[in-house]
Structure formats: structure tokens, C-alpha cells
């Protein structure tokens, strides 16, 4: 657990407030009345299996999709009444990297900086490149980036202009362990800086690691919500068992691959060559 203790004092209105949001596609009811609040400056994890409606909910809150009923306020602005103001306050990182493959990493960042009317788009792109360890790849086309680098560029683009609220829709799906740890570090740093983060994930450990509060979305509703400790109390206390501590496979993997961290995770190791004679 790496709960960050220093958070800005809670401001009266929640950063995100969702009431009775429902959405159907034809006869399929995806969301059947979702309610929750996210306090300013906290990390809220929406946990659910594939198809639980997490992405649908995030797209509704990001003003990309209209709900059939219910209402939601983001930064105290109703999403359907004032979508433009909501878009000014949020940033969305979807499940698939939304980067322009033809442009370089730097050009992608500058594009977003200019569209957000940030003062000094060049400087802000440079700062983002440095922060996300992409300076060396800055002038390569994003289409040539590895999966982890694309995800970092994607996140960097979402953070240009320092939006106070960030939606992260399954940010680590398909990433290798190092890239995943890198994304986690970013989320922790953002939370420490006072950004409100709504995170969807299907990985239980991700919610455990990052979230102040966790909501479980199932059958179109929030079936349980609370801090990790509160959720744990839902189950009866188990008798203590003596277990010999075993390294997890992730520990082993990271130890074998090296402590290089995200920076070295991406270029393929050049000492691996096809065995001679194994192919003709």
C-alpha cells in the first residue's frame, strides 16, 4: 500500500458525482442506475469484469456518450447541460492509445498543448517528454513506439495542461510489468499533486495498490463501495495461517529482467538472437 497521506483539504462538492446513470444498447441494459461520488484529489477505482459497463460509464462522464437517464456532475457542472466546461476540466485516457502514429512524440504533445491553448506549447511538450522518459524518442514517429512507450505518450498527452480530473480507462491492460509499474507511479504522483483520478480496472491488485476508494460495478450497478479496509471487513475474519513467504512470479520476472524500470523496458534486448540452425 502506498497511500499518500498529504492530500489537499476536501472541498465541499465532490469532483465527480454520479446519480442514477442508466444506459442500454437495444435490449441490453449495460448500466441500471449507477450512483457514486469521488472526492476531490482522491483516486477512485471502478472495478469490474469485462463487459461490466466501466467504459460505457467513463464515456458518459467524459461527454462522449449520452446516458438514457440519470445525471452526473463533474467539477460541480452537469455533464449534459455544460459539456464544454466539463471537457475543459477533464482528460480521458481510453483503453487504446489515442496517439497520432504519423506524428512524432513531440508533435503529438505539441498538438494537444496547442489545442488546450497552453502557454508555451514547445516547453510544455519538452517537459512532458522528460517526465515520461521519452526525450530520446521525441523525434521518432509514434507509430514506431513500443506498447509501453505509446501508453506513456498517451498519458503524457492527457496530462498536458494539468487537467484537475483524469479518467483512466483500463490504463494498464496489455502492458508488461515494468510499463504497468510506470503507469502506477504516474497515478501516485498525480494523486500526490491533487489531481482527482477515476480509474477503471479489471485487475484487483491495481485497485488495491492505487485507490483510496473502490467501487465494484456488477450487473449494471455499484454492488459495493468503500475503502479497501471497509471492503475487507465485509468478509468474516479468517483464522491466521502460517505461510512461508514466497516471491511472486512478478518479483522473479523483475529480478531476472533487471531493475531498469520503465526507461529500459522498451527497446528489445539486442543480445537475443535466433539460435543458429534452428531455422533454415
Amino acid at each position, binding site marked *: 500500500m502506498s497511500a499518500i497521506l498529504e492530500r489537499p483539504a476536501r472541498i465541499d462538492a465532490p469532483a465527480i458525482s454520479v446519480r442514477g446513470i442508466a444506459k442500454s444498447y437495444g435490449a441490453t441494459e449495460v448500466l441500471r442506475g449507477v450512483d457514486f461520488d469521488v472526492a476531490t484529489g482522491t483516486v477512485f477505482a471502478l472495478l469490474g469484469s469485462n463487459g461490466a459497463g466501466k467504459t460505457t460509464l467513463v464515456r458518459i462522464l467524459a461527454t462522449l456518450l449520452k446516458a438514457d437517464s440519470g445525471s452526473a456532475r463533474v467539477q460541480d457542472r452537469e455533464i449534459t447541460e455544460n459539456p464544454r466546461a466539463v471537457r475543459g476540466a477533464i482528460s480521458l485516457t481510453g483503453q487504446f492509445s489515442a496517439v497520432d502514429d504519423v506524428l512524432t512524440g513531440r508533435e503529438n504533445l505539441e498538438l494537444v498543448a496547442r489545442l488546450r491553448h497552453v502557454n508555451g506549447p514547445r516547453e510544455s511538450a519538452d517537459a512532458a517528454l522528460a517526465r515520461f522518459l521519452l526525450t530520446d524518442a521525441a523525434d521518432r514517429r509514434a507509430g514506431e513506439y513500443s506498447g509501453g512507450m505509446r501508453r506513456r505518450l498517451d498519458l503524457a498527452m492527457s496530462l498536458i495542461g494539468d487537467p*484537475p480530473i483524469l479518467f483512466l480507462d483500463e490504463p494498464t491492460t496489455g502492458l508488461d510489468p515494468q510499463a504497468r509499474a510506470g503507469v502506477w507511479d504516474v497515478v501516485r504522483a498525480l494523486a500526490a499533486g491533487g489531481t482527482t483520478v477515476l480509474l477503471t480496472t479489471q485487475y484487483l491488485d491495481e485497485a488495491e495498490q492505487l485507490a483510496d476508494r473502490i467501487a465494484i460495478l456488477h450487473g449494471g450497478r455499484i454492488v459495493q463501495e468503500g475503502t479497501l479496509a471497509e471492503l475487507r471487513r465485509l468478509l468474516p475474519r479468517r483464522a491466521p495461517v502460517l505461510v512461508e513467504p514466497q516471491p511472486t512470479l512478478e518479483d522473479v520476472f523483475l529480478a531476472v529482467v533487471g531493475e531498469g524500470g520503465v526507461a529500459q523496458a522498451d527497446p528489445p534486448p539486442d543480445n537475443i538472437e535466433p539460435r543458429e540452425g534452428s531455422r533454415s
Partner: protein
Amino acid sequence: MTAQLAHGGRPAGGGGSALGAPSPRVQGARTVSRALADVRVLTGRSLRHILRSTDTIITTVVTPIALMLLFVYVLGGAIRTESGGSYIDYLLPGILLITVASGVSYTSYRLFLDRQGGIYERFRSMPIARSSVLWAHVLTSLVANLVSVAVVVGVALAMGFRTGASPGAWCGVVAIIALFTLTLTWIAVVAGLAAKSVDGASAFSYPLIFLPFISSAFVPTDSMPGPVAWFAEHQPVTAVVDTLRALFEGQPVGDAIWIALAWLAAVLLVAVGAAIRLARRA
């Protein structure tokens, strides 16, 4: 375990909305200037796409040039055009329209790729006008197609195309081709927004490329059988071709230009309306 990621500090509670409330008029002017700046930035982006895939410009001009060679040097000898001038002078307006019709399919292709890749969704979740994204694609198409048209005209001049058009008539030619491009590009935008696959995104352009063949572009319509001739005389390409031909020949444009403008304006309005509806929904 992972490298440190320095965090850029941000004033607490900052949302960039700390500006005082300006008067509605100032706010309106600011919205417009921001929207224009956004269109400029996004147009720069898609022009870069074109500059980095020059093959798209080449493929756009190769087909019309090949058609021009085929019609002038293979079929042209057997075609009589009454006007008595050289066949390439007769043919060029139709070739230019085919150039545009095949060129606009890249707009729907690029728009579809934007939607598929997620960057379109990113733009839509940002505080920019949704129409800015579409206008950027449209302006890019306008620039790219006018370049293609200029290349084709250059080749036609080398093949013996001659015109007595005055500077005013040339302006008319450019204006009509620009309006034609604008209209077809908005149709391409509708296709790009509605398409479910890459093939679907560009398939709409085949009938548009074919339309000039059933018009006065290559042969006079009175050489066609009754129903075909009727269709050819009443479809928009004939009016546009006749207008361009009259302008190139230094002749009065007559009614053709009004019919052409009415057609293009009507189709343009319908296409823009459909595109904006799709953009709101999609």
C-alpha cells in the same frame, strides 16, 4: 523499481477557470478566435499526414492522367465533339472532376483512421468545437485536391491543352473546382463518420468517379440513347463540366453556371447537415 517520474506542480484547485467573467461579446469573440486557432492547428496536423505519405498525392493524380492519355491518344481519334477544337480541350474539365472525386476518398479514409485509432475520441473529449476536427479535414482536402488539379493541368498543358481564358475566367475555374471539392469532401466526411470499415470509408467515391462518364465530360450527350442522355443532361456533373468548358473557351457561361452552383450548394448543405448530425451522435 521503476524510474522516478518527476511531478509537475500545479496550484491547488487549479482548473484554468480562474478567469474573470468577461462580457458576452468579448467571450463570443474569444470563442471564435479559439475555434479558428484550433482549426489551424488541426489542419496543420492533417497536412503533415499528406506530406509524410506523398504516395497518396501520386495515386490521386496517376488515375486521371492515365485516363487523359487513354482518351486523348487511344479513343480520342474516334470521338467527334462538334466544337471542332482539340479533344484534350474538350476533355480536361471532366478529367479535373475525376481528379477531385478520387482525391476526396482520402478524406474519408483519414477520418475513419482517426476514429479507429482513438485520436478522434481524444479530440472529442477536449474543450474544442467538434466541427473544428471536421473542418480541418475539409481544408486539408481542399489544399491537397487543388494541388492535384494543378499537377493534372500541368500535364494537360504538356499534352497540348490550350485555353484562351482570361484571368477572370481562371478565377471562375478555380472557384468552381474549389466549390466542387468542398461539396464532395463533405460527402466524404459523412462516409468517414458513418463507415464501419476502411473499405466502406472509401467505397462511396466509386460512383462519384463514375458520374463524369455519364455526362457531357467525354462525349456530347446527344450521342447517347434517350434515357441515358436524359440522365446525363440532368445530373450535376454536366452543368459543372459545361461551365468549366465555357470558361476555358472564353465563351459566355449561360445558364449552366447557375444550375451548377444550385446543385453544388444544395448537395453541400445536405452533406454538411448530415455530417454535423453524425458528429454529434457518433
